[in-house]
């Protein structure tokens, strides 16, 4: 899943605001027009599925014509009322929120704790342990499905949220990210606090964490994205429809509304919207996180 991003000065200059080539001035006006036209065409292609998604979600598909209809005649909420009346979709939404929040809190806590230790504390075997943790990042989730299921089943957790949350909090990409960030915190600051008599815990809580806000943002967003979208593992351990998360619920609805795409797209939009909004608000952190960790 995760590896080590190539050695580029990503974080010193933010990608989104990095200076472009100064040679741009030499480009002809025609060149600029061509580049804008190409960009617009690419973006239209990229955004087209989203457009169809939103359009279909708010269209009464029972009157769907065989003709291509890309401009809506009338918008309606009928798809939402129909599905929300029939299935516990709001519970699925709530389940997704609960699982995502708890997993993210655990991931951020574990990652920053361990990241701090690997960055700033001296202890025997630190190098070996860190390498071992890095190595676990390459374990593919499909490779461990069977044993993980048996372990979680042995803990009597199958069919509970903890079956999703606990393995979800076991990702180690965050430790790597946290260590990388915390290496840049000046050791003098920590030494000074130590001389003042501060213990490890209070140094971590009062000095290191407040200095790590960008890290916390990146960790939180990546974890939220991963957990909100997680599909394969919840599909295996959540069997009771009341406990479904949104992705499992969507797959379930696909079987119920085989050709009622109004209903399906309405629910898809419901599941996609929170992340899209998060992304638009915090794009800078998403991009930085993705560029640094290579997740996805």
């Amino acid at each position, binding site marked *: 899943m995760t590896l080590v991003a190539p050695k580029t000065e990503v974080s010193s200059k933010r990608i989104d605001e990095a200076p472009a080539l100064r040679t741009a001035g030499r480009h002809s006006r025609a060149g600029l027009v061509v580049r804008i036209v190409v960009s617009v065409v*690419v973006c239209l292609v990229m955004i087209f599925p989203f457009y169809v998604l939103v359009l279909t979600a708010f269209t009464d598909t029972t009157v769907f014509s065989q003709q291509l209809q890309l401009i809506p005649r009338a918008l309606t909420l009928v798809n939402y009322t129909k599905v929300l009346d029939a299935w516990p979709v709001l519970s699925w939404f709530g389940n997704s929120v609960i699982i995502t929040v708890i997993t993210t809190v655990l991931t951020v806590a574990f990652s920053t704790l361990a990241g701090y230790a690997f960055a700033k504390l001296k*202890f025997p075997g630190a190098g070996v342990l860190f390498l071992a943790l890095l190595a676990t990042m390459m374990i593919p989730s499909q490779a*461990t499905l069977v044993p993980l299921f048996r372990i979680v089943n042995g803990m009597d957790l199958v069919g509970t949220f903890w079956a999703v949350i606990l393995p979800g909090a076991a990702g180690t990409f965050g430790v790597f990210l946290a260590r990388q960030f915390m290496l840049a915190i000046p050791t003098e600051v920590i030494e000074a606090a130590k001389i003042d008599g501060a213990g490890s815990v209070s140094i971590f809580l009062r000095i290191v964490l407040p200095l790590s806000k960008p890290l916390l943002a990146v960790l939180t967003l990546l974890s939220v994205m991963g957990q909100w979208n997680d599909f394969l593992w919840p599909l295996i351990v959540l069997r009771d429809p009341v406990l479904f998360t949104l992705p499992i619920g969507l797959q379930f609805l696909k079987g119920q509304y085989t050709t009622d795409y109004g209903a399906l797209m309405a629910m898809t939009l419901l599941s996609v919207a929170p992340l899209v909004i998060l992304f638009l608000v915090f794009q800078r952190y998403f991009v930085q996180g993705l560029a640094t960790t290579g997740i996805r």
Partner: protein
Amino acid sequence: MSAATLDTAPRPATSGPRRRRRSRWDRSAIAFVAPTMIFAIVFLLVPMVLAFAYSFAEIAPLSGKVTWVGFANYVTMLTDPTFYRALLNTVLFIVLVVPLSLVIGLALAVLLNSVMPARKLFRTIIYLPLVISGVATGLIGTFLYNETIGVINKALLALHLPTVPWQSEGGPAFASVVLVTLWIRVGFTMIIYLAGLQAVPVELQEAASVEGANAWQRFRYITLPLLGPSTFFLLIMSVIYAFQVFDTVFVLTGGGPGSATEVLGTYAYKTAFGPARDQGYGAAIGVVIFFFTLVFTVLQWRTNRTRDEVA
């Protein structure tokens, strides 16, 4: 936090003579790393070790009783046409998705690294599919590609072009999976290439420009070689991604029609948790996925390391 490599791992023994607490160590470190370590051992390391063990076992579907059967699962694998089909499809998927996503991502990165109005908006739109779940992407795909009411075929009809059997024929179904994957992936390759482009010195480009190099020559002989590390990183990451693809394929085609789009990820799941519930065999397929991932990860690490040593 720019140089993200293994080589910066802490080496307590060589931390230098000025460290006065060389022999003393911080005992609280145990508590700091314990949660991560325990979770990694219980939910990652032990399962991986057990996966090897179970690949030599037959697991009873209901009781979960383990019977050791030696290499029987691997023997089954060698004679299982669906496994070969899934393996072949996975390789084909890699061969199509990896180069295409790299080339498109690079082109977009170069395009959107240049000065133009609304550059940020363009980038945002291209990134957007990245954050969408594979399930949602797959569902949107099933609608776009639906043969009777899908938007794509309706558009083809409107243009008086022949419609495409996206769902009923193997070739088009495979193409539909590849296209959806590209839609998700190009934003990621673009991010990495944009980051790489920041490391290409502007002075070099300008010097070449002064020497009379045209835009293509500057790209081919300056930009492209300097993007080598980004390309290699993306190559490995994309191969690993493509090798482990599951969500989009499972929702979009379910591996069908027949097993035309079956990949190792979907086949491993179906074997272990589908109607067959042959978990020993499922574990064996998982081990194959692991080894392939291992090879490519080691390649990536070794290259990173040698580059660091040279630099």
